[in-house]
C-alpha cells in the first residue's frame, strides 16, 4: 500500500506545472557612450526578448522593468532654517550612496509591476536605489532629506521614473528608450532588466554601458589631474594671450 502511495505522490508532483524557465536576451542601441565636446545627451534604446523552453505560463501577465544607474557617490543634503531673522543651513545628513543618474522604466504602473518586498530585495525604485544608513540623533525627519534629494535630482532629469515606458509584444518582445541627460558623469552605467509576474521577479539580467570622455575632453581631463601645474600655466597662458590679442585687435581697428 505504502509503495503505491509514494508512486502516486511522485506522479502527482511531476504532473504539477514546474516554474517556467524564462530568460532574457538583451540588445542595447549602444554599449558605450562617448562624451565629445558637442555631447548633448544620448538616447539609449533597450530591446530584448524572453527566451523560453516551454510555452507561455498562465497566470498574471509578464511585466518588464529596465533600470540604468550611474556611478554612486556619497552626498550631503543640507536644510535651511530661519535663525535670528536670516536663513541659514542648519541640519546636514550624509546619504551614503546615491547614484549620479538613475532611471526606471516599467511596462505598467510601478505598484502593479513590482511588490514592496521584491523592491526591497532588488533595490529597484528610486528611493530604494539610494542608500541612507543612519541619521544623527538630533534629526528626527531623516526621510524628508532623502525626499529632497529625489525631488532636486528629478527636476534636472537625473532621476527618472518612466511608468508605461516599456512596450511588450506577445509577452515575448520588449523595448524601451531612456534619455541620458547632457550633464553626465563618467563611469559604468549599470543596466538591469527584470521580468516580473504578479509583482514577483522571475528573471533578471545585468550589463553595463560604458560612459567615457573621448578626444579633447579626455586629454584635458587627464592633463588637469596628472599635470595640474602645467595645466594651470596653460590656462594662464591662454588668458594672457587672449587679453593681449583683444587689445591688439582693438588698437588696429581704431586706427
Amino acid at each position, binding site marked *: 500500500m505504502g509503495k503505491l502511495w509514494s508512486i502516486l505522490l511522485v506522479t502527482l508532483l511531476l504532473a504539477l506545472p514546474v516554474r517556467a524557465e524564462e530568460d532574457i536576451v538583451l540588445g542595447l542601441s549602444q554599449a558605450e557612450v562617448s562624451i565629445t565636446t558637442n555631447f548633448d545627451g544620448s538616447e539609449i534604446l533597450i530591446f530584448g526578448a524572453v527566451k523560453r523552453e516551454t510555452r507561455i505560463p498562465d497566470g498574471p501577465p509578464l511585466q518588464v522593468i529596465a533600470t540604468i544607474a550611474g556611478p554612486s*557617490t556619497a552626498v550631503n543634503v543640507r536644510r*535651511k532654517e530661519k535663525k535670528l531673522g536670516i536663513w541659514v543651513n542648519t541640519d546636514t545628513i550624509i546619504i551614503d550612496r546615491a547614484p549620479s543618474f538613475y532611471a526606471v522604466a516599467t511596462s505598467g504602473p510601478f505598484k502593479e509591476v513590482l511588490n514592496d518586498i521584491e523592491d526591497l530585495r532588488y533595490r529597484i525604485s528610486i528611493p530604494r536605489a539610494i542608500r541612507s544608513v543612519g541619521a544623527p540623533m538630533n534629526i528626527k525627519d531623516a526621510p524628508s532629506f532623502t525626499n529632497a534629494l529625489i525631488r532636486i535630482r528629478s527636476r534636472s532629469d537625473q532621476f527618472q521614473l518612466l511608468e508605461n515606458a516599456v512596450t511588450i509584444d506577445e509577452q515575448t518582445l520588449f523595448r524601451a528608450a531612456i534619455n541620458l541627460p547632457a550633464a553626465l558623469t563618467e563611469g559604468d552605467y549599470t543596466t538591469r532588466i527584470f521580468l516580473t509576474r504578479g509583482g514577483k521577479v522571475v528573471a533578471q539580467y545585468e550589463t553595463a554601458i560604458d560612459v567615457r570622455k573621448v578626444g579633447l575632453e579626455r586629454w584635458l581631463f587627464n592633463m588637469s589631474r596628472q599635470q595640474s601645474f602645467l595645466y594651470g600655466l596653460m590656462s594662464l597662458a591662454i588668458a594672457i594671450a587672449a587679453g593681449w590679442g583683444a*587689445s591688439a585687435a582693438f588698437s588696429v581697428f581704431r586706427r
Partner: protein
Amino acid sequence: MQIYLPIAEVSVNAFLLLGLGGLVGILSGMFGVGGGFLMTPLLFFIGIPPAVAVATEANQIVASSFSGVLAHLKRKTVDLRMGTVLLIGGLIGAALGVMVFNYLKSLGQVDLLVKLCYVIFLGVIGGLMFIESLKAIRQSKSGKRAPRKKHNWIHGLPFKMRFRVSGLYISVIPPLIVGVLVGILAAIMGVGGGFIMVPAMIYLLGMPTKVVVGTSLFQIIFVTAFTTMLHATTNYTVDIVLAVLLLVGGVVGAQIGTRIGVKMKAEQLRILLAIMVLVVCGKLATELLFQPSELYSIGAVGGH
C-alpha cells in the same frame, strides 16, 4: 550650440557663456573690478558646480584684467608703482586670509560668514559711495568744485614715496595696509577684491578715479593668476573650456568697457559702480532674509 565642459561635467550653451563673459568684461573695463562677484552667482545659476565656477572665474578675470590694463596703459592711467605696493600688501593679506578662512571652516558656518561679509561690505561701501558721488554730481552741476583735501594724518607718516601718475606724495604704509586688508577679505570671500580696492583707493588714498581703474586691474591680474594656480593644483577645478568661452567674451568686453569709462565723468563712473554694488548687496540680502523656494541643497561630501 551646446558644449560639454570636461571638468564641470555639464553641457552648456556656448553663446550664453560668450554673452555673459562680454557683459562682465564691459563692467570690468569700466570700473576696474574683476567681476567675480557678479559672474560667480551667474555661473551657479546656469548649473556649473560652485567649486568649478569660483576657480574658472579667477582664470577668466586674468584675461579680462590683462586686456583692460593694456588699454589703460596706452592712456597712461595705470600707476605701476602704487599697483606694486598694493600688490605686495595684497599677497600678504591673501596668505593671512587663507589662514583665517581655514580657522573659520573648522568652526563651521563659513558659508554664512562669507555671505554676511558680502552683504555688510557691499552695503556699506555701496551706500557711502552712492551718497558721496551724488553730492559730487550736484556740486558739479551748480558749478562749484569739490574742495580737495590737502592734508590729514596720513601725510604725517614716514617712508614717503612719490606716486607720479596718481599725483601723490604719501607714505607707503597706508597703501600697504589697504592692500593687506583687501587681500584678507578677498581670500575669505573668494574674489579678486576689486570692488573693495577701488573705493579704498579713491577715498582712503585719495587717488584720482581715472587712475584707480587701471591700477586696480593691474593688481587683480596677479591676485587672480595666483588663485588660478592654487585651484588648478590643489582642487583640479579650473575648467579650461569654460574659461576660454568666458574669456573670449571678457577680453572684448573689457576693451569696450575701457572706452566707455574714458568718456564718462569720474563721479558718474563712481555712482554707477555704487549702484551696481548695492544691487548685488540687495540680491544677497534677500537670499538671507526671505524663505528660499527650495530649503534643501545637495553638496559633495568633503567640499564646502
